[in-house]
């Protein structure tokens, strides 16, 4: 397993926690050099520390075009090339539904999840093209396939990422530039974010069981399940996979 990504360079957004952190660790374990980016400086630095000399942290707001130029520049300065982009920065909000008259929540979620992913894909293609190819991995969600009444902008953003991914895959395929673009669609994963949410409920065990029951496997996944798929999509094992939506959802969408 180790060495599968030897000489590859990855940029991981949202690397301060959850899927992003775990993916950065797994990519690094498999030989990749990793730029960890996040708007959260403390968490990002902590992840980078775990990678030792094989990684560094760059503070980065994915919604800003300038920020993308800087983080890609920093990665190229440090490691001379860029082969893998993992767009794992993402947000949700408890007041995300069709009845709330709040444009701020809507804009915040669309900006980070959809616009941020769009900017990243757009900015990274020239460097990957120069390197003869690459792998762009976007974080979709089961909520890009199935609806949720309490996740209006989130569903819209992930539905958008799904099709953005396909459009990019077709564009790169037509150009024969060697760049693949795929989306990973996780189910509910027991990450720090979900744990924090469960802690705020007064029937934590029941809530956990309820979420688990939504998955055919009857349990929740964790960040490692996503990270394993990231390694697969980052590596040449997946050389014929592009424009795909890879579910890692414990069977959520089968029900």
């Amino acid at each position, binding site marked *: 397993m180790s060495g599968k990504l030897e000489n590859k360079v990855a940029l991981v957004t949202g690397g301060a926690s959850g899927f992003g952190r775990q993916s950065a660790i797994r990519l690094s374990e498999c030989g990749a050099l990793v730029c960890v980016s996040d708007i959260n400086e403390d968490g990002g630095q902590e992840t980078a520390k775990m990678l030792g000399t094989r990684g560094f942290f760059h503070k980065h707001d994915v919604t800003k075009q300038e920020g993308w130029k800087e983080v890609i520049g920093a990665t190229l300065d440090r490691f001379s090339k860029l082969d893998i982009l993992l767009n794992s920065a993402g947000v949700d909000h408890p007041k995300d539904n069709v*009845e709330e008259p709040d444009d701020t929540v809507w804009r915040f979620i669309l900006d980070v999840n959809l*616009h941020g992913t769009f900017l990243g894909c757009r900015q990274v293609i020239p460097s990957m093209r120069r390197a003869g190819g690459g792998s762009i991995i976007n974080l979709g969600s089961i909520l890009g396939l*199935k609806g949720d009444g309490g996740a209006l902008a989130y*569903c*819209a*953003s992930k539905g958008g*990422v799904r099709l953005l991914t396909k459009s*990019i895959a077709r564009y790169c395929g037509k150009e024969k530039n060697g760049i693949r673009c795929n989306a990973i669609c996780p189910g509910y994963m027991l990450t720090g974010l979900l744990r924090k949410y469960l802690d705020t409920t007064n029937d934590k065990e029941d809530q956990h069981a309820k979420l688990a029951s939504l998955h055919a496997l009857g349990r929740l996944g964790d960040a490692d399940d996503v990270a394993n798929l990231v390694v697969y999509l980052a590596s040449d094992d997946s050389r014929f996979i592009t424009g795909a939506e890879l579910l890692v959802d414990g069977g959520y969408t089968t029900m």
Partner: protein
Amino acid sequence: MNRCKSKVVLVTAGASSIGSMAARMLAAEGASVMVADPDVGAAERVAGLIGDSARHTQLSIANQSAWNSAAEATLHKFGNWNVLVNCEGFYCSGSIEDISLKNWHTLIETNVFGTMRGCRIAVNHFKLGGGSIINLSSVAGFVGGVDRCAYDSANGAVRLLTKSVALYCAERDYKVRCNSIHVGIAESLMAHSFLADLDMPEERPTIEDSSRPWVFQGEPTDVGHMIVYLASEESRIVTGAELVVDGGRTAK
């Protein structure tokens, strides 16, 4: 025919090809129709051609205050409002590298945020008496195109936005249904100016377009029939669904 008797429908882009056809067909089934369009003159002409059961108002869907006045105008003229046909959309081509940031923003702002604004105001009005929200989308919500990254993203977004609205209402027993229609011809029609369709049916835009492989033969009436079905009580158990009207394009 009275399949849409007692329905009061607001149609956005009501002067467009699909919008004006939907307005006409809904009115023929007994609905009262508010023809809303950014081009108020065109909206007036469409409403005039339909007759007594239609009124018109100006509406650009990206503008929240215009939504508020269009909803008020509908309630004022007809005393009720229970169907929204979200037909307005913007199309521009452009790959992930070529599209300008301005076009990306305009398209997402109009097609996604604008559609959400319509859903939001409709849910708040329909939740007591029930209603149907119909979001016009495209097969671009299912398959990607090389040269339309913003349009694909927006249609993917509308597809899931629709499901979220449907489930939100169902969970609260609001009796508000919300569905999306995925048309194979939408964007070739969006490029045309549409009153020709009402005035000179023989000069209807032709929909066969060999330069765009996803475009199959079809006419605005094909979409109109689906809109009438979703507006009527015949579809009372249909919500959160994706209804594809594409001549088999996405079956391939």
